[in-house]
């Protein structure tokens, strides 16, 4: 399924992540080597507190790496000016937007900010990109609605449309399925899969929906206490990686169904 010849959008080289304070350095994970290709849907999974957020924050240049290098489109991330990075990578965060009085159209259009002039006027090209993003996420019907009128599931689609409008090779989503019901969890991840295929963008998301991620992703990045492994889901299952994900007292991984079961 994964075409090895395709262009590498995100690559890390011996990356180690963590926090530095004046006195000490706390390493959360090290020796991370991952490669994400064009058009891939990649899930980042791991237990709470294992460092998923730290990894995402490092990959998005919110915090700096302790060691190693991150390449976006073969260029070191620290060499990116903030505006250039905004044209290469877009984000969907867990935090709420400040003003819910924006209409859906206005919010998606804000994704064009890196391309607009000093006062933020939309060109015809910008409008085309916005309409395209609305179509790709099936929310044309919502465009006049205000954000406070939307359900959580609809709002998440709008935020994804905003990231699409930003027109970047890489989209990173931090837990896009929290607060959603089972149907909408599947809906959003299925939508991401469709978008990765159709637009040939690389989409990386962190999630606790391991069952869904196994079924839908081209590749998974699994963080365990000892290391960070990335591979296709079926290979990870046969390697028995998922068994090492959590303490064994409560839940166990069932290889046949590709999901976790509660111990009886």
């Amino acid at each position: 399924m994964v075409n090895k010849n395709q262009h590498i959008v995100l690559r890390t080289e011996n990356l180690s992540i963590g926090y530095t304070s004046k006195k000490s350095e706390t390493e959360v994970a090290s020796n991370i080597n991952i490669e994400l290709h064009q058009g891939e849907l990649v899930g980042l999974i791991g237990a709470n507190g294992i460092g998923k957020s730290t990894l995402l924050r490092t990959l998005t240049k919110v915090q700096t790496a302790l060691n190693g290098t991150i390449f976006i489109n073969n260029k070191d991330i620290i060499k990116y000016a903030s505006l250039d990075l905004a044209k290469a990578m877009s984000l969907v965060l867990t935090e709420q937007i400040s003003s819910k009085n924006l209409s859906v159209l206005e919010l998606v259009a804000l994704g064009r900010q890196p391309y607009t002039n000093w006062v933020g006027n939309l060109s015809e090209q910008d409008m085309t990109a916005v309409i395209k993003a609305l179509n790709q996420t099936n929310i044309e019907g919502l465009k006049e609605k205000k954000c406070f009128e939307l359900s959580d599931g609809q709002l998440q689609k709008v935020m994804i449309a905003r990231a699409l409008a930003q027109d970047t090779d890489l989209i990173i989503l931090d837990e896009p399925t929290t607060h959603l019901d089972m149907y909408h969890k599947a809906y959003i991840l299925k939508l991401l899969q469709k978008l990765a295929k159709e637009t040939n963008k690389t989409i990386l998301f962190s999630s606790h929906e391991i069952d869904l991620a196994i079924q839908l992703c081209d590749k998974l990045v699994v963080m365990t206490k000892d290391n960070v492994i990335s591979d296709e889901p079926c290979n990870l299952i046969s390697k028995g990686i998922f068994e090492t994900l959590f303490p064994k007292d409560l839940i166990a991984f069932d290889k046949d169904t590709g999901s976790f079961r509660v111990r009886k």
Partner: protein
Amino acid sequence: MNTPNTYKLSFLALSTLLIVCFFINISLGSVSIPNSDILETLLGTTQNVSWRYIIIDYRLPKAFTAIIVGSGLGISGLMMQTLFRNPLAGPFVLGITSGASLGVALVTMGASLFGGVMAAVFISKWSIVIAATLGSFLVLLAVLIVSTKVRDTMAILIIGLMFASISAAVVNVLSYFSSAEELQQYIFWGFGSLGNLSWNELLVLFTLYTFGIMFSIVSIKALNTLLLGENYAKSLGLNIKQSRLTIIIATSLLAGTITAFTGPIAFIGLAIPHMTRQVFNTSNHKILLPAVLIIGAIVMLICDSIAQLPNSDFTLPINAITSLVGAPVVIWLLIRKRKMIF
């Protein structure tokens, strides 16, 4: 995001209203002057010297001051509310008024404490303006320095409030030790006044106001991006620290100079952005900024006209009127629309 025709219509109506309010404001005052004579005076064809004096040297500068105060404070309030993501923010959360009050308190009431008779001689119009400017400038400088150090915008809000508390405490101590006359002078400054500006002072005020407006226009795109929250804004390539600095400079230029010349004008900075959002129902600053400018000017002209108590010898403190008129309007708008737009 484009300006539809409904906005154009609203802007046309508001601009007309502004012009009407301007002429009503000029035609009202303690001395009643017939409308035809007002027009003649404005055109420079009247022979009546005292009317010319009243209109050209008193009412006109006062009306222009009202326009600058209303629009300037409204825009400062709008920028602060967006920057701090807080509907209760106004132009004075940065500690500008407190700094100005402290400066004025030191000049009016500190004289007897520190300099005795000598200092009291120097209490003039300009010394109060300079003291207010210096006071607000120093507090702002402190806030600015801190704002480049802290990562969290909310911290600036708290720091501004802390500076306000410190200034208020010092003012309290000063007023405890000062004489009744000094206290009165300080309190009168605190009432706010639009009517004391000469044309020269107005020119200084207008120049600084223009710079402030220019800084705020440059910030329109940043303000719109900030509607998503700081992290999203950063991911869109916005330089947060630089934008924050530009917004703070714009606010301090507007609110700082206005306060220095007219005293602390209450309520306008907080209320005008809310009124405007209710009228225009948008958060887009490309619409809000010019709308706040016009609505602020209109409201201030109306407040000033009422404060004059037309055809009577009394003038009410402008601060009392802005709150008396403004608060019910905001309450009415909120009840009518049943929700706050922010």
